[in-house]
């Protein structure tokens, strides 16, 4: 009896909050058939938005992957002053409002900001252009690789690394041949999370992008712009693309997760 009650309670909560809305968006996208939806995601504005989103992710994800591995190694393998501060700064993007992040970058790089004046004088436009959009995306997707790699590094210990260096391996060889293979699934998992976050960022990018259609508009901004312009098919179709990416992320996560657990 209580078993059924709990099952019904839990599953209805998920249905009402999660399954029904997401299912409805899929249905709305193809309400008028496949043609209009396809036309909506192949307009020049939509195609450029997709291109820009992928370009930003293509810069932000490798940057945060390299940083993530180096930072995790620093946190686990080295003792240094201010480790607590480094840990706190790495976690901060998880908790901070994206709008606040966008504002911080806006203040730093806009014309009256600390760097903005000098950069503008030298012909470099950061705010309302690609550089600021890339920088805020790096900020919001920064923690994931670090947070996935740190526990694995703790777990594998240093014995194999020490053995490698006693046998004459250089630090780089030790990293390439011993450390990297051990953490590769954690890195892959972190990269998937970083990519999902980078592709889906909205608030921070919204503040620093300037919303120029066909120029500084990403997929998420395109969704909002289409919706505000009463182009519901366009908004739903672009959302559908983003939702498909999100679902592929979940599939990739479930592929990487078991391997990580049985290492």
């Amino acid at each position, binding site marked *: 009896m209580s078993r059924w009650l709990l099952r019904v309670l839990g599953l209805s909560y998920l249905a009402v909050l999660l399954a029904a809305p997401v299912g409805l968006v899929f249905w709305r996208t193809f309400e008028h058939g496949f043609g209009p939806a396809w036309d909506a995601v192949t307009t020049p504005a939509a195609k450029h938005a997709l291109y820009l989103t992928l370009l930003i992710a293509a810069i932000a994800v490798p940057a945060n992957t390299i940083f993530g591995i180096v930072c995790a190694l620093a946190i686990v393998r080295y003792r240094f002053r201010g480790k607590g501060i480094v840990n706190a700064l790495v976690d901060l993007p998880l908790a901070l*409002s*994206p709008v606040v992040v966008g*504002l911080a970058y806006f203040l730093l790089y806009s014309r009256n900001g600390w760097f903005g004046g000098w950069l503008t004088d030298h012909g470099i436009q950061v705010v309302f252009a690609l550089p600021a959009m890339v920088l805020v995306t790096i900020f919001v997707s920064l923690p994931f690789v670090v947070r996935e790699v740190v526990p694995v590094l703790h777990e594998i210990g240093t014995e194999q690394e020490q053995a490698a260096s006693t046998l004459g391996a250089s630090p780089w060889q030790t990293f390439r041949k011993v450390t990297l293979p051990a953490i590769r699934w954690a890195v892959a998992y972190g990269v998937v999370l970083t990519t999902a976050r980078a592709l889906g960022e909205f608030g921070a990018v919204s503040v620093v992008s300037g919303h120029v259609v066909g120029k500084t508009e990403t997929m998420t901004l395109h969704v909002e712009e289409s919706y505000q312009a009463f182009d519901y098919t366009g908004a*739903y179709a672009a959302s559908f693309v983003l939702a498909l990416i*999100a679902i592929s992320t979940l599939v990739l996560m479930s592929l990487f997760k078991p391997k990580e657990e049985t290492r």
Partner: protein
Amino acid sequence: MSFVTAYLSLIVLLPLAALVWKSADAGRTGFWDAVTDPQAVAALKLTLVVSVAVSLINAVFGTIVAWILVRDRFWGQGVVNAIIDLPFALPTIVAGLTLLALYGPNGPVGIDVAFSRAAVLVALLFVTLPFVIRTVQPVLLELDREMEEASASLGAGPLRTFRYIVFPNLFPAILSGVALAFARAVGEFGSIVLISGNLPFKTEVASVFIFGRIESGDPAGAAAVSVVILAISFAALLGIGALRRWRTRHDRV
């Protein structure tokens, strides 16, 4: 090492320093005026109240969902388990549009919460759904069932066993999930912006208020309220860290 410091300084520290600096631009009175502006106070109050509410609602339903995922067996359980993380993976603006499609003016079920405080609640429930489930689930998996069997064999009913045996073991995990959900809810923007209508004094949350101030050319006012949000986020992170340390100590005993 210097690479880590340089990267963190450039990406995280410098922009936040610029933010704090700007909020101090107008002096102490200017800062105080900006954060005690009635519209700002209303936005901050709504944000905090709704964030606490969604954390508590998800504490209850998150524990129930974690329970049926671990202790129950039913058809389609794997799929249910997989879609729990969807709110993490789905871009927030898509989450907002999704909820608007079902619970908005043109929704098929006749429930229209758009432009009301209920809309803010629904949006935040959606984006914070996974936190409690994902913190409670592993603890429940590890939990030794012998204790519960002992309790039952000594004549305790299911409720009594849950109250005195299961709940105390889950409590630290539930609390961690609540803290994570709260931290996430306080800063949420994308999922709220379409469905809440952003009505000042009614449905405007802190992030939307800050966004509005930036758009209307008042970066100092935006920065002042941002510093308040920054402080809350920091406090939430410290709380989460303290909980994590408490839980690992708890585990060792």
